[in-house]
């Protein structure tokens, strides 16, 4: 790897929730967290449920404050500890695909995808064509005028995914976006995501509790321990791309990585 500065750098990040009645010490969810993401890297973070994965992404996306630590984007510090200065999405530079699809129920699928373009004042023939291309790429052609409640859970996920891809933020955070789906839809969406990623090679930070998913998608996988979360493993995923998500299970390299990560995740 070249020695260019990382695109995104997390330094000493920590989060403490207010003490509840009956608790002696404040509860640290995350403590002393350091990692960085290179431009174009697909980073996955695995950790058990309740290891503060969502909290971590909320802090990076600037929708939640950190108690301590700093966040650097392109070597510029982002105001992550000051609740007044928080800048959700860091001026459209950090995209965030949340666990729930969070679609606007009164907008059709296409209008949901066009929403960020509209509010950013970037709605034009070119961006509309891009939206249509993405809709087609994830198999939503023909569902443009459907409302979210008329779509399946997997389709809603696709809409929420391309709603972020459509405005092309330099970094995209993903919080178990495929968590609530059945196994087949999941593999299909993972394949879609890899295909879309191959087109643009975005920088992605993808959080999951599913080790197989973490390996299948990533260039590199970090392992978090239970709260207070820290990084206890850093694995380079050297399985050549393009990968066949379904066929990976039989790959010996996959099996070795899976066992190495499994032993760290508790």
């Amino acid at each position, binding site marked *: 790897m070249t020695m260019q500065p990382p695109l995104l750098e997390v330094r000493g990040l920590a989060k403490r929730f207010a003490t509840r009645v009956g608790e002696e010490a404040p509860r640290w969810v995350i403590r002393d967290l350091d990692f960085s993401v290179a431009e174009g890297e697909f980073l996955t973070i695995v950790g058990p449920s309740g290891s503060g994965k969502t909290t971590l992404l909320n802090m990076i996306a600037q*929708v939640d404050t950190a108690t301590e630590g700093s966040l650097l984007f392109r070597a510029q510090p982002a105001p992550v500890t000051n609740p007044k200065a928080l800048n959700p999405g860091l001026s*459209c530079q950090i995209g965030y695909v949340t666990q729930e699809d969070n679609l606007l*129920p009164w907008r*059709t699928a296409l209008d949901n995808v066009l929403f960020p373009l*509209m*509010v950013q004042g970037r709605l034009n023939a070119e961006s509309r064509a891009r939206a249509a291309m993405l809709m087609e790429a994830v198999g939503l052609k023909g569902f443009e005028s459907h*409302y979210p*409640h008329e779509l399946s859970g997997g389709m809603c996920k696709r809409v929420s995914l391309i*709603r972020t891809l459509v405005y092309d933020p330099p970094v995209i955070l993903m919080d178990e976006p495929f968590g609530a789906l059945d196994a087949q839809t999941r593999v299909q969406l993972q394949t879609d995501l890899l295909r879309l990623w191959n087109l643009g090679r975005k920088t992605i930070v993808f959080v999951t509790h599913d080790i197989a998913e973490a390996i299948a998608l990533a260039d590199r996988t970090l392992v978090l321990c239970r709260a207070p979360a820290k990084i206890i493993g850093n694995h380079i995923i050297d399985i050549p791309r393009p990968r066949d998500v379904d066929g990976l299970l039989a790959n010996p390299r996959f099996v070795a990585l899976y066992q190495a990560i499994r032993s760290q995740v508790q």
Partner: protein
Amino acid sequence: MTVLDAPADAGFPGRAALRRHGVLIGRLALAALLVAGWHVLAGAIGPLYVAAPLAVVERIAADLGSGELIRHSYVTLRLSAIGFAIGCAAGVVLPFVLRRMPRLTAAIEPYILASVGIPKYALMPLFILWAGIDDAPKLLLVGVLVFYVVFIAVFAGIRSVDRKLVTMARVLGASEMAISRHVVWKSLTPFFLAALKIALPRAVSATIIGEFLVGNAGLGYYIENARQMVDIAGVFAGIVVSIIIVLAINALLTLLDRRVNAWRPVDRDMRL
């Protein structure tokens, strides 16, 4: 029950249609029964207290022909509309302003909620004292009534907005203005329309009450004037026209509701 009913309906589609028409037939029969009851009651009690349906229809036809009822209806509708517009605008704008000032909201909220309890009609003599006997006191009454209904609904609607959608919109680059318009306003539209269904008929009622008290035109004046002349058919004619106006407004609102809330999976059949 449902399990047994469903296949029976599926097997005989005519039965489901009959059931639907059955409701309609029932409704018409009930209406006929009510009018017949009215007729009998008018005969029993006498025209000094209850005007007969036919006499009322004749009176409406006559006063529509002379333009008298149209003039009074116009006066009432105009006042209702202006008062409604003022109250409604204030009732929508104020909660949106307060949304950006949570501390101020927390400070004044108990006062706002307490002031809901003030019986607004009781203020009418004060409005007359302060604003004279022209349109102004009636506009004040209508405006205040509408304001409270709309304000409470929009205020509660803003509270109920899914915070996750607001956060998401922010991440996607929406300004506070865009969030107000495209997220908050859209998600409270059902609340707002429900408020309109209460506020619009109330605006007409308040105007009529105001016209009982001050002024020399409008349906309220028409009704009260007829009463003073012991013209009972006139009183009933005024009341019937008022009812028709309110029902027409409600029908328009239902149409609007269907258009605006077409995206909603539920509530589409709810009418008031």
